[in-house]
């Protein structure tokens, strides 16, 4: 078992099992995962900071067993920052906050390939910083159908005076985020709003969109999962890897790129691998920055 101790920002971190292959289909190892997150550091950290992390760990790689961990692992370096979170039922729990690069790499070293965070920060758990439309294709629908829905959604939101930002889920779907960043906006607000939008889309595009959970209603359609707008749920973070057969990235896209990809009719074009994700941020910067910085107000509520 190989092990290296690195000194990062004055903190000492032990990296282990570096040559372990976590994605057997393409030989992507733990070292590759760590290198990806190291290079992505400056771009992904702003989206993780101050948010309780849900780890999704694959100690034996993507073909092995996985588990969610909402509690911060008890054996952690003293410099890992945490927050006390209140869970339903009254108990409190200690969650990890990925506030710096050493913590990000510590988490990656635990084979938490996927990083999931809530839409609220730990310090203000009732405030929805953004509203999200999680577009999830049902059986026989594809990401191209999601793209169609995303474009209609963007048009609708824009006419309501709301700017929106887009990323791939890293799997088969798309995530449309509407930045809010106002202390008064609650999850009650975002859930009601997104549900109303989802229902109007379903009403007007019944063969393309469904706003209902039941599996049977989803065949051939895109499910707009508005119920993700909830303080107790998490979304995969922008730039996180996914634990599919290959390390696809949940990658922010420009709307213009979406139009081109949709026009080309090529679902594979939406799949972004780590090297490409890094090249993109180095060339274009953080396309998701707006989610953290723009302040918007939900109208008609």
């Amino acid at each position, binding site marked *: 078992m190989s092990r290296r101790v690195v000194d990062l920002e004055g903190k000492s971190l032990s990296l282990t099992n570096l040559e372990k292959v976590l994605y057997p289909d393409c030989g992507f190892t733990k070292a590759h995962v760590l290198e990806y997150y190291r290079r992505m550091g400056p771009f992904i950290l702003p989206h993780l900071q101050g948010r309780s992390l849900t780890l999704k760990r694959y100690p034996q790689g993507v073909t092995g067993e996985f588990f*969610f961990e909402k509690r911060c692992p008890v*054996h952690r370096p003293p410099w890992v920052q945490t927050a006390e979170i209140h869970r339903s039922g009254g108990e409190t729990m200690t969650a990890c906050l990925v506030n710096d690069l050493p913590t990000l790499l510590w988490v990656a070293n635990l084979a938490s390939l996927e990083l*999931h965070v809530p839409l609220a920060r730990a310090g203000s758990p009732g405030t929805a910083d953004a509203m999200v439309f999680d577009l999830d294709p049902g059986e026989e629908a594809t990401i191209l159908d999601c793209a169609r829905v995303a474009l209609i959604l963007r048009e609708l939101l824009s006419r309501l005076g709301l700017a929106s930002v887009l990323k791939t889920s890293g799997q088969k779907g798309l995530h449309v985020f509407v930045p809010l960043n106002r202390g008064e906006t609650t999850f009650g607000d975002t859930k009601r709003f997104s549900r109303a939008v989802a229902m109007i889309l379903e009403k007007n595009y019944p063969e393309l969109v469904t706003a209902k959970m039941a599996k049977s209603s989803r065949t051939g359609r895109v499910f707009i999962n508005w119920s993700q707008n909830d303080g107790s*749920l*998490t979304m995969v973070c922008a730039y996180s890897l996914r634990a599919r057969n290959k390390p696809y990235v949940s990658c922010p896209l420009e709307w213009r790129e979406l139009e081109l990809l949709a026009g080309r009719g090529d679902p594979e074009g939406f799949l972004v691998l780590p090297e490409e994700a890094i090249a993109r941020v180095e060339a274009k910067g953080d396309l998701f920055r707006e989610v953290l910085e723009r302040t918007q107000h939900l109208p008609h509520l």
Partner: protein
Amino acid sequence: MTGGTIWKGSIHFGDEHLPVKLHGAVKEERIQFHLLHRRDGVKLHQQMICNYEKMPVPADAQIRGVEIEEGKYVIVEHGELEQMTPEASRLIEIHEFVTTSQIDPLLLDHVYYLEPDSDLVSGSYTALAEALQEMSLSGICTWTMRKRSYHGALQAWGKVLRLSTLRYADEVIGASSLGLEEIPLSERELQIGSDLIRQMAAPFQPEKFINEHQQKLQQLIERKARGEKIALLRPRILTPTSADKLLEALEASLKKAA
């Protein structure tokens, strides 16, 4: 008298087949308590409640799933779960023999006694029991009983063959995950402590221990049922031995035990 036959199977390894009957080895006698509603003393029922509708759900409307993403489950149908277990057969299939001491006792779960299914195989049964004892081996085996697959160890104790079910390795928490620190101990403390244990050593005689609490509990119930007032006694709480007083406590204990 042992309990009745739970199941019948046949031990198989190499060319050997030994038909056996399984009996339970343990019979627990406990005073049973029910759970009551404090307000009206009504007996409560345990039910599976739907998280969403907050209503009880009957068994035929329950399905199984595995959580793969937050709030998202892959449904596993009943038939599929069964397919994962091997065909129902009566074989207790031994895959390997291991030195008995290699089996961590933490893995041992339930014990069944095995009885030869007919007089004709008494000789083979005894031969197997002797062979396992002489070689200090256990047979690691799998079998399917009532649609569930089991994995266990075939062992001999005295003249009796037993089947112990084994827990799966991933179900047992290792001591290392407790996060205990290593505390330095002085050789003197360890010496005295070891001597103390030797002073307090005894053979294992389980018949010495009876369930006294059971009897006292029975008395409590009778007294309360008669309407007597129950005096509440405070539980005994000991003062923990601090690190700097440890050696002193050990020395005093050794003196007392001698």
